[in-house]
């Protein structure tokens, strides 16, 4: 469920309906995912799930899997 919603956010942010992310997806795999669009992505994810990440949490995200795990932790609590 989280995966699907995350994927939807990716498609909107990067304006590409073909995008399909999985746990091991990183910035290198997606066209246009740079240090500037990363902020839009993070704030869109936060809005979608009504969560808030700390700077430290965002810095530690190495791939989409890390992001999904954090969302799961935050929405469970």
């Amino acid at each position, binding site marked *: 469920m989280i995966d699907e919603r995350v994927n939807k956010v990716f498609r909107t942010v990067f304006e590409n309906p073909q995008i399909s992310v999985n746990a091991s997806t990183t910035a290198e795999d997606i066209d246009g995912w740079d240090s500037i669009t990363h*902020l839009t992505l993070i704030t869109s994810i936060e809005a979608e799930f009504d969560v808030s990440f700390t700077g430290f949490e965002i810095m530690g995200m190495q791939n989409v899997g890390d992001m999904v795990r954090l969302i799961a932790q935050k929405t469970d609590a």
Partner: protein
Amino acid sequence: MQFNTIKYLVFLFIVFAVTLALSKLRNSRWIILLLASLIFYYTWQPYYVALLLFSAALVYSTGLLMGRSPDLKTRRRWLWAGGGVQLLILFFFKYTEPIISSITGLNPKSAEYPLFRILLPVGISFYTFQALSYLFDIYYGFRKEERHAGYFAAYLTSFPQLISGPIERSGNFLKQLRQPFVFNLQETALGTRRIVWGLFKKVVVADRIGAIVDPVYYDVTNYHGAILFFVSLLYVFQLYFDFSGYSDIAIGSAEVLGIKLGENFNHPLSSKSVTEFWRKWHISLGNWLRDYVYNPILFANKKWGKSAIYFALLVTFLICGIWHGAKWNYVIFGSLQAFALVVEAILARKRKQWANSKTRKVYLAISWVLTFTFIFISDIFFRSGTVEDATHIIQSFVSSNWRLEELLAYVNMLTKPKLAFSLMFLISLIIVDRRISQFAHGKKDFGQFGNALVSGSMMAMVIIFGYWGKVAFLYFQF
């Protein structure tokens, strides 16, 4: 021991031979690399070997303490303590003299200067960057602390990247160093090819161009538009071929020893935006700044929305400027980069539309001209000793007193064949750069005969036309 000396090539060959001879012995790699690196550094500045080892011990133990800390708060404290001391060491050596001289108004080189001269330890910026990246990576959970002191010291002091980078992350480097060394003729050949290519850029092209640029920049106030334009344009290429040539030698040297370092340049002068330029110019520094300065500032202030991006860019590039030296010309250099990047970030959506429109080719051509002009102007601040010099140069471009005859007289004064050769080499290098780079990266094959011909002629040109060991690499001063 500069990279552009025969001594260095002999040294590298010996390190390679010893690594190969002892490759069956377990753990021999870090010992050989560490010893070689210390000897290498000793030939630069014998006293500062102690400082280098102190930094290695400091950062290694900070890593251990961070790894043992149960909670984030304690880890952060150790990060600030250990990383802070290392930064203070860098600040002391880099900024004490400029600060004292700005307070007292005395030139550090004058006899009345109150303190003894502080000699900058070579490479201190670069090994400090590697040290901080190691600590940040532990802090953010990208890696565990390195428990083996020898491996850690070999990483921090590794001679190919010790003096001017590429700034390498510890995880990538140590994973490779832990593998046993396996001789692979193709890799050794590629590494050697890369070194020869780097030497060509440096000793054949950059140093020759430097010999034309330097006399004018030595006292710019004496010159006018035409000549200043000519040498400033040449400098853009001198800086690129000098520093990318250095990086090629560093990457090639590591490759000969079986370690792949990250790339540092990717044809930045063909960039069509300043944003693209910073992804292709001094890549390892750009990544470092992005990961450890820009992103933390950005995400700490993410509530500000887009303004957080502009703020993070400004702080990051001011730091980038001041890192090059505590001088106003570098502050302006950094601010110019930040300004251009902010403008491009604001126009990001529009730029994407233009790039996808029917007039794409026109848009790209204009973008390239604008970007190159921007690099050209900001490099004038980079090269000039003072802001006054830089503004004099830029003003001279728009002044009506262009004085073409001054340029012609200068050209006449230079020995003709020498000048002709230098410009011919430069122009042919610009034309073949991309193709030969691919060849040096092992991504292009000219056939058996062609490969031998290209390698052979590169080597011959380096030997015949090279300015061996006469000119230091431009980035050694940072």
